[in-house]
């Protein structure tokens, strides 16, 4: 193994072949959560495509690797690699050269073990697998083979670099064979049972935009959610994001502009509360019916949340709403006054809430309410049209840590942004935010007319049918 300088050792991270852009940021966030400061070092096998599921990462300790693997959603397993090579002979030589003292603790008579064969991008018969397993008889294992729950699991992994099929990423240099063989000891792997446990298909109370369990867990990992942290979702809906946060031990709070969704649900046993009860999770400590555009928090409230995680309404599956509807809609300058006798039962109308304004409000709120070092994790839509101006949102209090794209259609994708609050919210920033707020309000009709560009982009037929050939290797589609 190369790179013996610097702290820690190299471990092989074998990712699940999904959500490719999300894999490395997840491991980096978890490393931070478990106390590893600074940027992680990564390297790939020779000639491997960036989408390859095999990455080497340098971590300070095996315990750190185990913690990360266990908590992750996208790490299939992390390994101490005993050898790698482009051919079986190279692999065998490397395993034989791997230091004796590092192998010895795992080869004793008391160590039960099994060898797992995993070929990425091709299928091999069980006869071939057994042949491969037996070919490792040059390693002096003394322990008993135990298929069910062995003490140690060894993996033989192979990527076939010659064939481009079944989602196999092509080698960087097509003429060079990217085939790579690895042999290693498993340190830990993701607990994917969470994805099944919290699957939306078994969730009692669902809305049209409920967050998928896998992504909700990923968002919590990006937000460094942990026991006793305080997590807020300003667009809580049916609570799908907070369910994941509560699973990781957070106290949660949510707000939504739609009263029926958060208060009434579909009855006494089918509402936001029941979604937490269903999994024996502590319910949110607070649910508030509130408008992200006219927030009800006391003006001097600062730094209360450790993380803010949300999926803002950006007008594709669900449009955002904000207060002040009828007045804004009719372009009435004078205040729209509700007669006193109607006031008690009055149901306030709402107006459309455009993406730019929604994101401005979100960043301003997060800058006020997050602790320093706290994270804001949210989805942001991107257009995939050629020449589209996809500027990511920014704010002087925040540093963008990662943006992970997930392609949803030929026309648009969504990006999971992870931002860290790096500096304090000042009076000056508050004044500027208020100015922008009024600016948005004044130009509401005009901005609405210019039309939510993204929405029209997705829904308006463009006249010409897109005749793009979709390659078999799906990259970010997986």
């Amino acid at each position, binding site marked *: 193994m190369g790179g013996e300088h610097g702290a820690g050792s190299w471990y092989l991270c074998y990712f699940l072949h999904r959500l490719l852009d999300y894999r490395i940021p997840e491991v980096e966030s978890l490393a931070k959560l478990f106390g590893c400061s600074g940027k992680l070092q990564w390297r790939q096998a020779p000639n491997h495509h960036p989408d390859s599921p095999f990455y080497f990462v340098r971590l300070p300790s095996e315990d750190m690797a185990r913690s990360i693997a266990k908590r992750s959603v996208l790490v299939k397993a992390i390994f101490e690699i005993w050898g790698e090579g482009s051919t079986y002979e190279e692999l065998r030589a490397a395993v034989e050269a791997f230091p004796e003292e590092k192998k010895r603790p795992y080869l004793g008579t008391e160590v039960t073990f099994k060898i797992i064969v995993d070929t990425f991008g091709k299928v091999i018969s069980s006869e071939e697998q057994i042949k491969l397993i037996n070919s490792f008889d040059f390693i002096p294992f003394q322990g008993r083979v135990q298929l069910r729950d062995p003490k140690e699991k060894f993996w033989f992994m192979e990527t076939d670099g010659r064939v481009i099929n079944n989602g196999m990423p092509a080698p960087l240099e097509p003429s060079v064979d990217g085939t790579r063989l690895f042999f290693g000891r498993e340190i830990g792997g993701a607990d994917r049972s969470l994805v099944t446990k919290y699957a939306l298909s078994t969730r009692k109370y669902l809305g049209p935009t409920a967050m998928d369990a896998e992504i909700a867990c990923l968002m919590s990992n990006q937000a460094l959610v942990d026991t*006793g942290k305080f997590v807020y979702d300003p667009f809580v809906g049916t609570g799908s994001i907070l369910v994941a946060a509560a699973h990781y031990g957070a106290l949660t709070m949510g707000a939504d*502009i739609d009263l029926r969704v958060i208060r009434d649900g579909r009855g006494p046993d089918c509402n936001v509360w029941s979604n937490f009860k269903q999994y024996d999770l502590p319910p949110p*400590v*607070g649910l*508030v019916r509130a408008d992200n555009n*006219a*927030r009800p928090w006391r003006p001097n*409230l600062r730094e209360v949340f450790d993380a803010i995680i949300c999926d803002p309404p950006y007008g594709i599956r669900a449009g955002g709403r904000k207060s002040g509807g009828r007045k804004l809609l009719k372009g009435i300058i004078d205040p*729209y006054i509700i007669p006193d006798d109607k006031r008690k039962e009055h149901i306030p109308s709402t107006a459309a809430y455009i993406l730019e304004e929604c994101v401005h409000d979100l960043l301003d709120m997060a800058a006020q309410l997050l602790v320093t070092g706290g994270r804001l994790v949210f989805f942001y839509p991107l257009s995939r049209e050629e020449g589209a101006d996809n500027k990511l949102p920014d704010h002087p209090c925040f540093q963008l840590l990662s943006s992970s794209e997930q392609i949803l259609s030929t026309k648009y994708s969504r990006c999971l942004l992870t931002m860290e609050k790096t500096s304090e919210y000042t009076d000056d920033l508050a004044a500027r935010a208020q100015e922008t707020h009024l600016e948005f309000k004044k130009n509401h009709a005009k901005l609405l007319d210019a039309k939510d560009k993204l929405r029209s982009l997705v829904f308006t037929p463009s006249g010409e049918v897109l005749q793009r050939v979709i390659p078999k290797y799906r990259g970010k589609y997986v």
Partner: protein
Amino acid sequence: MRLLTHNMLSCNIKGVSKGFPLGIEVAKLETKTVEFNPQFLRHSFPKIEWKAFQEAAKTLGVNDLPEQVEPSMLDDDDFLRRFHHALLEIHLEEGDLVCPETGRKFPVAKGIPNMLLNEDEV
């Protein structure tokens, strides 16, 4: 609605300068047991507007909180438990929150305060 939430909310009607703390009119209270989490309590304590909290607690019938507090009290288990109970276990299930300046009522139903403003209030 727990007192933790109450302590964070204010009336945000346009032009209102003193919208905190909101008065509480109780129609129905509930007590729900919440796991005791000292770490969270210590984290929340400095963010709490104590006077408003202590008075709101009294309105909900919790009279055992001191008027004056200091961070050293967080080492006292007895204090932490009383703080925990008032902050997280007492719920206003039905009632109203009242703006101290305008008297505007924000209804609380099924434990959820409705803070949405009317068109002429934003």
